[in-house]
């Protein structure tokens, strides 16, 4: 199979959506599930082949554009396609429970959101990457405004404005890159980036940092993020947290290591990540809206990831990638479970966590919470201990102390929510869950436990990814067309 299918198949499905809609909602939902299944199975098939894989468009690189799949992108591809598959199953329940929504258009945006995110991680051409950036952007604006109520539209507008700022900076950076280097191929840029005027290179890096950092929700540029999460649907929040934010993070660090910025800007990114972590976790303490609370938690976890991924040490990076995967699964689980509650109670106050009666939901939510907190035997623990171990190996004790101290703050609100769920004194209302959701949530919970007790399943891929990220020689060869 060619890598191009990752983009072209969703595009065909989206173009044909009006006709699927005419055939009935079953076809619509079924076709989306089928599409996501195909993509996921294709990704699974790629786990068995030698990497990197390449598929070119029109011309061979470095002249033409190509999709390159290396270890780093394979891990993200697995996360994205899996999350998409899970969400596509979940949406079956959602649209059955919420009649009269514009289902077809949701699926268009959903498919293209996934396709855009995948395009961002596969493309080896920075302008092409920008196009996928915009595709992902437009889909996320539309999805956050999907409810068409005041809150939804407000979040849509806010997201759109932020997206415009980010894209202006990125376009500027791309233009400067083309003016300096004469190409937009990532391989050539990486090769020549050290030779251009240092002042201009700082400007380019700064603009890319602002552009992708804004979208990846880094501290002084993330004041919009909780609003977006609050205004959009829970399932969309799950996608934002586990797919979209991770795609921007991917690009951030891909360019970071590809352009050889790690030595110069490591400390800066680490400090920014640390501040993000600190501020978001403290802010989350004070929230009464559940979606907003988990938005802050997502920001905090992204902060840890930024801290750990910028260290340039393979132990820490590998741990961070494990943590990233586990965080994606856990946050998806939490947001999907919350979606069920929010649908039932028609409210997103944190009190709803104390008012539902369902052993299943309590267990899966508790698993999600414990996993994010990094408590064994759940997958978050392995990620966290690997990160801490990596920091210990580089003797960075300040980072260890910082992460652990702020984690206690994180524990405060997570366990407050858990205690609310377990509180017997509240009035409890039973919540219908639906068969599909039992399956979806159990799969996620089982994965969390599985990666916690048998991490070797995942460490194989995170090690591959770490190697590909820190030593992108193979990737460069493919992007330059040398290895072909």
């Amino acid at each position, binding site marked *: 199979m060619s890598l191009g299918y990752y983009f072209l198949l969703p595009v065909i499905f989206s173009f044909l959506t009006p006709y699927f809609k005419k055939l009935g909602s079953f076809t619509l939902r079924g076709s989306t599930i089928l599409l996501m299944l195909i993509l996921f199975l294709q990704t699974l098939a790629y786990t068995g082949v030698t990497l990197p894989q390449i598929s070119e468009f029109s011309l061979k690189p470095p002249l033409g554009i190509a999709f390159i799949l290396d270890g780093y992108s394979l891990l993200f591809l697995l996360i994205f396609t899996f999350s998409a598959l899970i969400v596509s199953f979940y949406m079956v329940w959602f649209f059955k429970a919420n009649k009269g929504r514009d289902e077809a258009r949701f699926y268009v945006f959903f498919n293209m959101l996934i396709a855009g995110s995948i395009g961002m991680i596969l493309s080896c051409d920075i*302008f092409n990457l920008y*196009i996928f950036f*915009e595709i992902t*952007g*437009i889909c996320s*604006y*539309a999805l956050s*405004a999907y409810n*068409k*109520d*005041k*809150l939804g*539209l*407000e*979040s*849509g*507008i*806010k997201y*759109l*404005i932020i*997206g*415009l*700022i980010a*894209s*202006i900076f990125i*376009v*500027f950076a*791309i*233009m400067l890159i*083309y*003016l300096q280097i004469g190409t*937009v191929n990532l391989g050539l840029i990486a090769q020549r980036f050290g030779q251009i005027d240092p002042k201009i290179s700082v400007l380019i890096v700064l603009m890319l940092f602002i552009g992708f950092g804004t979208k990846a929700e880094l501290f002084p540029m993330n004041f919009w993020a*909780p*609003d977006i999460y*609050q*205004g959009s649907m829970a399932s969309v929040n799950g996608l934002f947290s586990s797919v979209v934010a991770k795609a921007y993070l991917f690009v951030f660090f891909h360019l970071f290591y590809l352009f050889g910025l790690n030595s110069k800007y490591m400390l800066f990114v680490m400090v920014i990540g640390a501040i993000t972590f600190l501020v978001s976790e403290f802010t989350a303490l*004070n*929230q*009464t*809206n559940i979606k*907003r609370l988990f938005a802050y938690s997502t920001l905090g976890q992204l902060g840890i990831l930024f801290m750990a991924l910028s260290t340039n040490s393979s132990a820490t990076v590998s741990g961070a990638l494990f943590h990233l995967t586990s965080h994606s699964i856990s946050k998806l689980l939490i947001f999907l479970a919350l979606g069920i509650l929010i649908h039932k109670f028609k409210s997103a106050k944190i009190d709803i966590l104390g008012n539902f009666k369902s052993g299943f939901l309590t267990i899966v939510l508790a698993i999600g919470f414990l996993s994010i907190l990094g408590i064994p035997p759940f997958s978050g623990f392995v990620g966290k201990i690997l990160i801490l171990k990596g920091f210990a190996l580089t003797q960075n004790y300040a980072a260890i102390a910082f992460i652990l101290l702020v984690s206690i703050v994180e524990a405060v609100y997570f366990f407050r929510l858990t205690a609310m769920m377990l509180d017997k004194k509240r009035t409890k209302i039973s919540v219908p869950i639906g068969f599909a959701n039992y399956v979806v949530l159990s799969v996620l919970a089982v994965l969390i436990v599985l990666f916690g007790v048998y991490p070797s399943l995942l460490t194989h891929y995170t090690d591959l990814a770490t190697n590909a990220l820190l030593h992108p020689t193979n990737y460069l060869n493919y992007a330059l067309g040398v290895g072909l």
Partner: protein
Amino acid sequence: MLEFFNSTQTIHTIIIIGSMCLFFIGFYGIATQKNLVKVLVSFDIMESALFLFFIGLHYQVGLVAPIVDSNLKTFTNMVDPVPQAMILTTIVIGLAVLALGLSFGIEYYKLTGRNDISKMNELRD
């Protein structure tokens, strides 16, 4: 005097100064304007400035458009077509985002009667 103005160097200087002025006018605009439509206009001005900057710096005196016709049979001495293609793409994307933003704005205005982005503050804890 006129020769001075016709040199590539001078033209590039004019282009850099002019487009950056335009860019920072837009920058000032997004920093100060609160009406959604005017914010979008400011963004468009910034984008236009970037387009002019990019296309302009690839123009040199004596080069012609990358199109052959009955007079011109070979692709030599032409300006770089890649920036033009990229700008073409970016213009279309810009329009798409702008139209989407406007449609959000219209719906929001219908619901609340407001189009001031600094007063959109219902999303809070």
